[in-house]
């Protein structure tokens, strides 16, 4: 398969669109945890119950279209290969938990543009998830509510007057909502400012996490900020609080980027061009090094140091260079050093597409 065709298949179409502040905010996500009112939660549910839940979802919502989310298709976990599952994880369409604790009747319902996905029989009966490009939390919440209402039109949710939406884990009860944004924060990371800001962000009931690659530790300067509290605050308030923190982080990151350019231009350029060189010429590259270089190149694009390369390269290569995706491209299982070789090949080829 040609890389271009493979990319078209592997990169969700919503990811190619530009969103507000997409120089710093890669994506916005709303996730809702929902359960059927009269069925045991998946952990203790019988196989019959699990199958019943799957069937209800598959027959009522499979092959359906809801507003702009077209042709939902149901993918059963038992029909997928290990590589197929990894690819869904790398595209954030399912969680690793769905695989690790794979239950009977577990699967995912995905809209054609992959913006909406609903995991079935994960920790809860349903995990509804919507992604938006860039910084669009309010829009994401509005749309998530609409999708939620559509699902609820045919299913009785487990809901309690005082505790709200009942979930398997006490950390999700109430709204059942996790709102999050993925941010590329290279300047705040280089200047070690982010670490110092984390406690204050935590104080507001929000969590900052690094995105983990094959190894451990935050890679590629990409961070996820999300709400910790789901009970006692309304969905709008939660989104509002997250929104204001993200706004401040965007401002800080921009400010720090321009300070870096004013005070240490040559060091920034050196960092960017070295990374660009590595991506253009390496023949073997591990995922950690790739992520770091991709982050630097993306910073170079945002700062106008590198021209004629599209911004989207970060989002794209972050997905394409993951182990599952590489193996799907190769159509075979790959050993780590084979992956490093293919990763380097794909990156070089992707950069050539720009010229």
């Amino acid at each position, binding site marked *: 398969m040609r890389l271009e065709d493979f990319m078209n298949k592997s990169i969700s179409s919503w990811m190619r669109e530009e969103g507000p502040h997409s120089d710093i905010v890669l994506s916005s996500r709303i996730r809702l945890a929902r*359960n059927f*009112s009269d*069925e*045991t*939660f998946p*952990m*203790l549910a019988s196989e019959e119950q699990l199958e019943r839940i799957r069937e209800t979802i598959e027959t009522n919502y499979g092959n359906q279209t809801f507003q702009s989310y077209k042709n939902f298709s149901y993918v059963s976990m038992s029909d997928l290969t290990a590589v197929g599952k990894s690819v869904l994880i790398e595209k954030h369409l399912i969680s690793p938990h769905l695989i690790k604790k794979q239950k009977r009747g577990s699967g995912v319902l995905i809209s054609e543009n992959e913006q909406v996905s609903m995991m079935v029989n994960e*920790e809860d009966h349903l995990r509804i998830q919507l992604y938006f490009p860039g910084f669009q939390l309010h829009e994401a919440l509005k749309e998530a*509510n609409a999708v*939620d*209402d559509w699902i*609820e*039109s045919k299913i*009785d*949710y*487990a*809901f*309690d*007057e*005082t*505790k*709200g*939406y*009942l*979930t*398997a*884990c*006490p*950390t999700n*009860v*109430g*709204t059942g*909502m996790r709102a999050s944004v993925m941010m590329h924060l290279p300047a705040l990371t280089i200047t070690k400012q982010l670490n110092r800001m984390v406690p204050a962000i*935590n104080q507001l*009931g929000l*969590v900052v996490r690094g995105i983990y690659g094959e190894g451990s530790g935050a890679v590629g300067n990409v961070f996820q900020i999300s709400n*910790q*509290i*789901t*009970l*006692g*605050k*309304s*969905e709008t308030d939660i989104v509002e609080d997250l929104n204001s923190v993200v706004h401040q982080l965007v401002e800080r990151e921009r400010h720090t980027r321009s300070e870096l350019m004013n005070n240490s231009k040559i060091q920034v350029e050196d960092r960017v061009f070295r990374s660009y060189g590595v991506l253009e010429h390496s023949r073997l590259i591990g995922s950690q090094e790739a992520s770091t270089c991709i982050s630097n190149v993306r910073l170079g694009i945002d700062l106008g140091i590198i021209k004629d390369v599209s911004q989207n390269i970060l989002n794209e290569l972050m997905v394409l260079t993951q182990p599952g995706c590489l193996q799907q491209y190769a159509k075979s299982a790959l050993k780590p050093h084979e992956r490093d070789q293919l990763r380097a090949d794909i990156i070089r080829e992707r950069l050539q597409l720009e010229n």
Partner: protein
Amino acid sequence: MQCQECEERQATLHFSQTINGEKKEIHVCEKCAKDKGYVTYPGEDMHTLHNLLAGLFNFDQESMKPTAQHEKLTLKKDLECPECSMTFTQFKKVGKFGCATCYETFSSHLDPIFRRVHSGNTKHNGKIPKRKGSNLHTKKQIETYKEQLQELIKREEFEEAAVIRDKIRALQADKEAGEES
């Protein structure tokens, strides 16, 4: 004054809290205040889910030391969910509920946990599902009217009371019709 949680130590913290619309006086000792999630101390690491859950459930571990006396006490006290058979002891170990009914079954023990996880909150304040919600709104309205009705009867304002009574009847009829459909 004795601590209302452990009924052992002296209560040193006194405050009122509005829980589920009801104002309650709370008198607890320092240990219980912390363990049962009434207060959180600055510097406590509440940020990772792991620490959170570990912190949540270890407070009862002490009282579950395998001395004969304690074991008996735990056994006697252990609640079991009639729907999914999960016991409260299991719940504390796994940190997950087995089904929606568990919330009801363990309700008397849950608020301290919710307070810790959700920064002092114990009551939902967000979205209400549409279909279930329409009845819920009606139910809440009926409750408000019933309170008004009691008040009016006490004051012997029977004409007003009759109006409110009719409103309650109408809402109840709506609600039943809604439940049947």
